[in-house]
């Protein structure tokens, strides 16, 4: 009897401290996520500030000329106006626009097919196959874009008398669009299946064809979810690196013609930081400024998208 009381007193105390330790470890692990964000924001801001001490922020945000490789001498940097980011933004947006023009309709219509027209056996086979498409590393897409698609487009363009660059925004944008199809399809599928069946039945009961019910009732009802998905897709496409590094151009060109070669923010970040540079040179610091810009834009898109999707889900729960 005495032994029992003895052990039952010591054990809870030991367990108490062990559990306290475990809890501390758990909390520590959870804070890694915060630490990562702080790390990202801090390092980007810190290096960007050092950059903006050399190149004024207005030159960066509103400058129309980007050629950092030319600013070799220290004294040349500020005055040559070589760090204007506008051509990069335009290039990024051009390629993103091409990508979304492909991924948006194709992804949405794929979702329509899978959720409204496909039988469950067809759906159960096609959906995982599209997931495979989503799982292919972007470097493979980049390879395909550079080695297969870009030459095709160039030769095709020649055949019809168009001058298509071998690093055209069209090639990179097309392949990026295809890469994004499963993403848009998946989110749109979720949005469409979240629409209550009673709405579809209401539309059918009053004499709609299936396509009319889908176009006029279901998709409008699912629109917030679909829109959120498109915003997230935009964020993905803007931040995509390998496809553009391998298939898009290196020189900044301010143009809206998809047949031209343009460069993007991500391509420049890679170009500026690979190869032998000192870490503190204005060129490497400009990469961080670009990184900060990229992070801010994608963050804004993500937050907006998640807000829209969340509000939409609450509507139907």
């Amino acid at each position, binding site marked *: 009897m005495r032994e029992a009381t003895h052990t039952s007193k010591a054990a809870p105390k030991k367990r108490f401290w062990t559990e306290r330790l475990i*809890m501390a*470890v*758990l*909390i520590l*692990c*959870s804070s890694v*996520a*915060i630490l*990562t*964000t702080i790390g*990202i924001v801090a390092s980007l801001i*810190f290096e960007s500030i050092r950059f903006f001490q050399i190149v004024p922020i207005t030159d960066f945000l509103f400058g129309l000329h980007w050629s950092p490789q030319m600013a070799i001498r220290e004294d040349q940097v500020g005055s040559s106006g070589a760090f204007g980011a506008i051509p990069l933004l335009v290039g990024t947006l051009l390629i993103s626009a091409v990508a979304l023009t492909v991924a948006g*309709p194709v992804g*949405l*219509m*794929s979702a329509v*097919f*899978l959720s*409204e*027209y496909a039988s469950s056996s067809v759906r159960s086979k*096609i959906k995982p*196959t*599209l*997931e*495979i*498409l989503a*799982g*292919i*590393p972007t*470097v*493979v897409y*980049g*390879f395909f874009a550079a*080695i*297969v698609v870009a030459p095709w487009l160039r030769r095709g363009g020649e055949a019809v008398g168009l001058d298509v660059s071998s690093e055209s925004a069209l090639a990179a944008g097309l392949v990026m669009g*295809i890469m994004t*199809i499963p993403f848009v399809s998946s989110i749109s599928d979720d949005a469409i299946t979240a629409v209550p069946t009673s709405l579809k039945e209401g539309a059918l009961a009053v004499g709609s*064809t*299936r396509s*009319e019910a*889908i*176009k006029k009732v279901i998709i409008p009802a699912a629109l917030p979810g679909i829109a959120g998905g498109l915003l997230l897709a935009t*964020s*993905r496409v*803007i*931040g995509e*690196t*390998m496809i553009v590094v*391998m298939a898009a151009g290196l020189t900044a060109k301010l143009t809206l013609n998809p047949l031209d070669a343009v460069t993007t923010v*991500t391509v420049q*970040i*890679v170009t500026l*930081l*690979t190869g032998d540079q000192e870490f503190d040179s204005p060129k490497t610091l400009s990469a*961080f400024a670009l*990184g900060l810009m*990229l*992070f801010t834009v*994608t963050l804004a898109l993500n*937050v907006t998208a998640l807000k829209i999707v969340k509000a939409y889900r609450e509507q139907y729960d």
Partner: protein
Amino acid sequence: MTELTFKGPSAEQLRRRHLAEKRFRLFAISSVFLGLAFLGVLFIIVAISGSDAVRQAKMLLTISLDVDEFEEGKNSNSAQISKADFEGFIKKSMRSSFPDAKTRRMKRELSKLVSSGAAYEVREFILTNPNQIGEEITIWVTASDDVDMLLKGKLNRDLPADLRQLSDQQLSWLDQLMEQSKLEMQFNWTLFTKGDSREPEQAGIAGAMIGSFYSVMVCLLISFPLGVLAAIYLESFAPKNAWTSFIEVNINNLAAVPSIVFGLLGLAVFLNFFELPRSAPLVGGMVLALMTLPTIIIAGRAAIQSVPPSIKEAALAVGASPIQAVFHHVLPLAMPGMLTGTIIGTARALGETAPLLMIGMVAFVVDLPTTFTDPATALPVQVFLWSDMPETAFAERTSAAILVLLAFVCTLNLTAVILRNKFETRY
């Protein structure tokens, strides 16, 4: 009330609408078809191209291992053997096969038929078989990449001589060698056993595979425990207040941050601040871990949420502490879901290139890495580097590397899907 003069839709209108229905449906089907067609085309192109890389042209040489070329003849040790003139052996052998190579230019063309690495291959052979010194040996050595391309039909013989990689003379020599069965295709072991090289016929993905392996190992070792524990805390123990919702928003955002930003973080903090070695799988793994962590946390939380609360309540009712209840009862049931998320995250980490470029795993690394801190490259980076190489022979090797990469990634994703299907039908 309005009286209608006709009742219901007209036949013409109905016909148009049914036609519109058919068109819409066709549009939907072709959208799915587009994605699948691309997948098919991609695989076919890569498979056809990559399968060529598995074969490599080899040439049979008869070499007399002249004893005088070795310091102590038959008794030379490894160091002494290594000093011998292997290129000379090869040149002698080839010139004896083709005595018509008289001029310097012709002699140069002749020796260009074998790979520059052939000398090392001869050396390896002698080091392994030192008793053959003084004998005449026959050895298959790797032919040059131009010869390889010729045998694979990728070299255009009809081009005018100055645009061709191989001269008429070289072509006639090669034809003779083929007739004598001294030139043939063999399995390209180099591809799987050697590291990168400037010469395509000497290049292999072994270094990249090891580098990827180390990086992903580090990534898993860091992100899996951290992710699982964080998921447990956030889902089971954290109080529901503004702070925890902030963490949740944070994690959701991190999951959507472009991967290159993680590379920038790695560059600024790990390389610059902590001064960890560049190009090391250790740093690569750390960056990949930060990127994969949000995915694992989100999947882990979903897995824990799907375990019925009755399980935890039952454990608590028999006197377990909350920590015991979660770790002993809830976690095992949530583990399949967590593993699924981890596998998917790992598959993504395996294929990521941009963050590794930022931390320097893009260097030209020939030697196979042996530790986590040796400079290394990774498989997707290798694909990236090779796709830029001008030599035609690199194209098929890039495809082969892609096939290997896809094999790993698809296997991982498939495992995750099977795991998910097997365990999701529980409740």
